[in-house]
Every structure is written in structure tokens, then in C-alpha cells.
């Protein structure tokens, strides 16, 4: 299930219907410099409150892009909208992934284009071994290298179940190994070091770099400065809208500097402070 380097799925694209994209279609000429992920005017409201508010964001091919923001700023919601999770249907906006209009696609169709998501709280699977979880139906798949990449010894973990007996940190690492084994074009990692001990964060940073080195891109949602600085670029999200994009150091400093000028203070912690 290697999603890199293949042709754009023309047949899927041709079958799609637009969701509010017609007015900006002209600007989406496929060129060599077109972003891998191009989000325009994305809006999601819950009870008339905008969780995502006309959000624009671009992630280039081969880029690690960190997404910073206070709790409740919309980072995980954005991840769920991009992946197509149930209940996360935007009211307006358009998302193109590798030139394909993403929003009309079902979740597994998005994944087959090379998009995936590692959740902040990964699911548990009773009776499913780590080996089976990483192989996902590929009988000859060798899951050992992906496990070693996240700092887990295959001989200790391959036959364990992906269930409640795993600690939060172990489950998180297995989730990242699952992402690695998929070789995605774009991996959305939501808090990939949550629950990971300090000594093991280097393994996770190694995973992020490996995803890039293998030709993929990463949208990296994180609260950890050490992890954010691995990115090539970073953006700050506040109250559902991108308020800053730049280098990771600048973005971290911007976030720390409480420089938000648009936030109403209900969401953005740095303004309230």
C-alpha cells in the first residue's frame, strides 16, 4: 500500500462533484508548484459557532508542516475534516489533495490517495495482533522495521494485541508504526508525542523525518516546541483560522508572544493571558 509516486487518480477525480469550489477553480491549475494539500475557505460550524473559519492552508509535497494553536483552536477538527471522519462535514470551502478534490470522497478513498491520520487517542482493537494491524491484510508484510523505527522490539510486540493491555505510549507508537507501514503521501499526526516518555521522543522525531525522507509530507499537530522545530514550516491556528505562517521558530515565537490580533479571547489562551 505505497501511495507515493503514483499517478493522480484521474478516474476518481473525474467522478467527483464540487463542494463550493467553482469560484476558485481557476486558481487551481495543476502545476509543478501546486501544493500537495491546498485548503481554501474551509468553514465548519457547530451550533452557529465557527470551529473552522474560512481557513486557508497549503502543505507542499515533501514538507513537514507544523500546526500550532491553543486547546480548542480547531487543530483536531481540521484533521478530522481532512480525513473525512463522521460528523465533520464542512459547510463551505474546498480541499485539494494532489490535485484531487478531497471533500466528496469517502474516508477509505482518501486513504487510498495516500492521506492518513494518526489520532491523538488511538483506537484499541480486541483480538487483533500488532502484526495484523500493521500488515492490514498484506500476508507477506514484514512489520518488524516499522516497529523498530518507533523504538519497539518486534519480538516483544508483534504477537501482542492492540488492546487495552498496551500503555498509552505503546499504543501511540504502534499507531505511528502503522502510519509508517502505509507509506502515505501525507500523514496527519495529531499530537504524536502525547503519552510518550521523554527519552523516546527522539524515536517519534525520527519517524517524522523518515516519513519525509521517504518522499512523504507531514501535517504535524503538536504542543511540543521540540517537535514543532522539526518542521520545515509552521502555521498557527486561532479560533479556526490560520493567523500566522512561517518558519517553525518564528511560529513558535509568535505563539509564545501572544501576538494574536483577531481572537475574541474565548479560545486563544495567549490573548487571555
Amino acid at each position: 500500500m505505497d501511495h507515493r509516486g503514483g499517478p493522480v487518480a484521474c478516474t476518481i477525480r473525474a467522478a467527483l462533484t464540487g463542494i463550493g469550489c467553482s469560484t476558485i477553480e481557476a486558481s487551481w491549475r495543476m502545476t509543478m508548484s501546486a501544493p500537495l494539500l491546498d485548503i481554501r475557505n474551509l468553514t465548519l460550524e457547530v451550533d452557529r459557532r465557527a470551529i473552522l473559519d474560512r481557513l486557508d492552508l497549503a502543505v507542499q509535497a515533501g514538507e513537514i508542516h507544523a500546526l500550532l494553536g491553543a486547546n480548542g483552536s480547531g487543530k483536531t477538527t481540521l484533521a478530522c475534516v481532512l480525513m473525512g471522519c463522521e460528523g465533520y462535514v464542512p459547510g463551505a470551502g474546498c480541499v485539494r489533495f494532489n490535485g484531487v478534490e478531497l471533500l466528496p470522497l469517502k474516508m477509505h478513498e482518501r486513504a487510498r490517495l495516500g492521506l492518513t491520520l494518526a489520532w491523538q487517542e488511538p483506537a484499541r482493537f480486541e483480538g487483533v495482533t500488532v502484526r495484523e494491524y500493521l500488515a492490514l491484510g498484506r500476508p507477506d508484510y514484514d512489520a518488524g522495521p516499522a516497529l523498530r523505527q518507533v523504538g519497539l522490539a518486534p519480538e516483544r510486540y508483534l504477537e501482542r494485541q492492540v488492546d487495552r493491555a498496551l500503555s498509552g505510549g505503546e499504543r501511540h507508537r504502534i499507531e505511528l508504526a502503522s502510519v509508517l507501514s502505509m507509506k502515505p503521501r501525507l500523514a496527519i499526526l495529531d499530537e504524536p508525542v502525547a503519552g510518550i516518555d521523554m527519552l523516546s521522543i527522539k524515536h517519534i522525531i525520527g519517524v517524522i523525518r523518515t516519513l519525509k525522507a521517504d518522499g512523504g509530507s507531514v501535517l504535524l499537530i503538536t504542543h511540543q516546541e521540540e517537535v514543532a522545530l522539526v518542521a520545515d514550516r509552521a502555521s498557527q491556528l486561532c479560533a479556526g483560522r490560520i493567523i500566522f505562517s512561517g518558519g517553525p521558530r518564528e511560529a513558535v515565537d509568535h505563539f509564545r508572544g501572544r501576538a494574536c490580533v483577531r481572537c475574541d479571547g474565548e479560545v486563544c489562551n495567549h490573548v487571555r493571558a
Partner: protein
Amino acid sequence: MSELDELKRILPMVGAEPSILDDARTAHVVARGHRILSRRMVPGLRLDAEETPDAIVGKLTVDAGAQIDRPIHMCFGLAHPTGTQQIRIDVEVREGARARVLSHCLFPFAEEAEHRMQAVVTIGPGASLTYTEGHYHGPHGGVRVLPHATITIGKRARYFSDFSLLSGLVGKLDIDYLVEVEEEGLAELSAKIFAHGTDHIVLKEAVMLRGERSRGLIKTRVVLEDRAQAEITGITEAYAKGARGHVDCLEIVQGQAHASAIPIVKVFHPEAKVTHEAAIGSVDRKELETLMARGLDPEQAVEMIVSGILR
């Protein structure tokens, strides 16, 4: 082809090797209807059985201190579309003994039949019995399967049971187990059932924790599809100091199936504790989405989740 040869041909359907019936070191009992087709005992194990017109009546004894290393295979079932099989058996695992029973229940051709099991199991002090029962049913679903058992677990004795019905249509399955656990005894009851068509599943398991520091676990996994229905009752009652019990029931309902789960927990001693968890519903959304985010379509994802639950 003899009935025994026919049975050997279908044994792999429940994951058993036909060669086990030829192995002199492995005990077995094979019965079709009310006839015993084959039996072999090993040192430390005795079977006294009688064929009657309406039942097989017997007693299986594991001698005190005997350690039966190889599993004892018991093959039951019917070779024809109609018929009745009734087994009335006492099982006694005497003090300090250890045995493992694999029971294979085969009804590949049954269309309108009944299999009735009435067992009284006694596990002596410090003894251990592991009982695994696997069913294979054909596509017709007209069987009434009625296993009823009373199990007494002695001081520091251990009992593990694992019932599975994972393929074919059963018809009506009505399990009723009552387990009495004495001081420091342990009972773990596990059942995995995949019901289809118009299958009707009634599962009632009761664990009475009578002795101090006795322990019990009832774990049930049921997946229903089509118009199948299930009523699952897990009862644990704790009567003594330090007794610990848990009831864990998960039912996944698909199609037009419907299910009920009734955990009943009672505590009669201030230093005893019984907990329970029960969940009924569709496949967990988060699990489904996680697999779909890796590229599995919804059907593939459900299959992986369900096969894991029933493993």
C-alpha cells in the same frame, strides 16, 4: 463410508486433526446420536458410559493427581438431517488432577435436530479443568442446541471454559451454566458466538463465589447479523470475604438483528467485590475509522474488527 470415517472427514471444520483419533496417547470419545462409535482412554482417565435408546449416559473420571497432558477429545453430533442426541454426563476431576477437554460438536447436515447436554462437573481441591467447546453447523439452521451444566469448583481448584460457535447457522442455542466456586477457587467462562439468519441465542451463565478469595470472570462476545437475536445474561454473586468477580459482555449488532445483555451482580459480603461492563451496538466508530484511514473499505474494516472480537 462409515460414520467414523465421515466424522474424520469433517473434523477439520472445527480445527481438529482427524489423526487424533488414531493416536494411542490421546484420549477420545466419539458419539453420533446415541451410539458411541469410538473411545480411547489413557492412564489416569476413566469413562463409564452406557448407550440407551434416548441418551448416552456416562461418567468421566480423572484420577486424583493425574496430569493428562494431551487434550481429551470429545466429538458429538448427528450425521443426518434429523435426529436427537442427548448426553447426560458426570465429569469428576479429582484432587490435584489436571485435564483439558476439547469438545467438537458437529452438525453439518442437520435441518431439524436437537442436541441436548446435561453435565454435572466436579473439580476437586487443587485440580484444574480446561473445557473448550467448538461447534460446526451447516447452512440449514434447524438445530436446537441445549447445553446445560452445573459445575462445582473445589478449594484452590481452577476451571476455564471457552465456548465458540463461529460458523454456520445454529437455529436455537440455549446455554445454561451454573458454577459454584469454593475457597480460593477460580472460574473463567468465555463464550464467542457469531449468529446469522434467524439464529436465536440464549446464554445464561451464573457464577456463585461461595468461598473466601474465590474469583470469577464471565466474558462474552457475540456478533449478530441478518435477523438473529440474542439474550445474554451474566450473573455473578459474591458471598465471602475477598471474593472478586467480573462480568464483561460485548455484543455487536448488524442488519436487522437485535440483542439484549443483562449483567446481574450481587454482593453479600462487605469485603467482596463484583464489577461488570456491557456494551451493545454497532462496530465501534473509532475502530472503523482508524482502519478506513489506512485504506480498508467499510466491509473490510468491519470484518477485521469482528474477527478480532471473536478470536
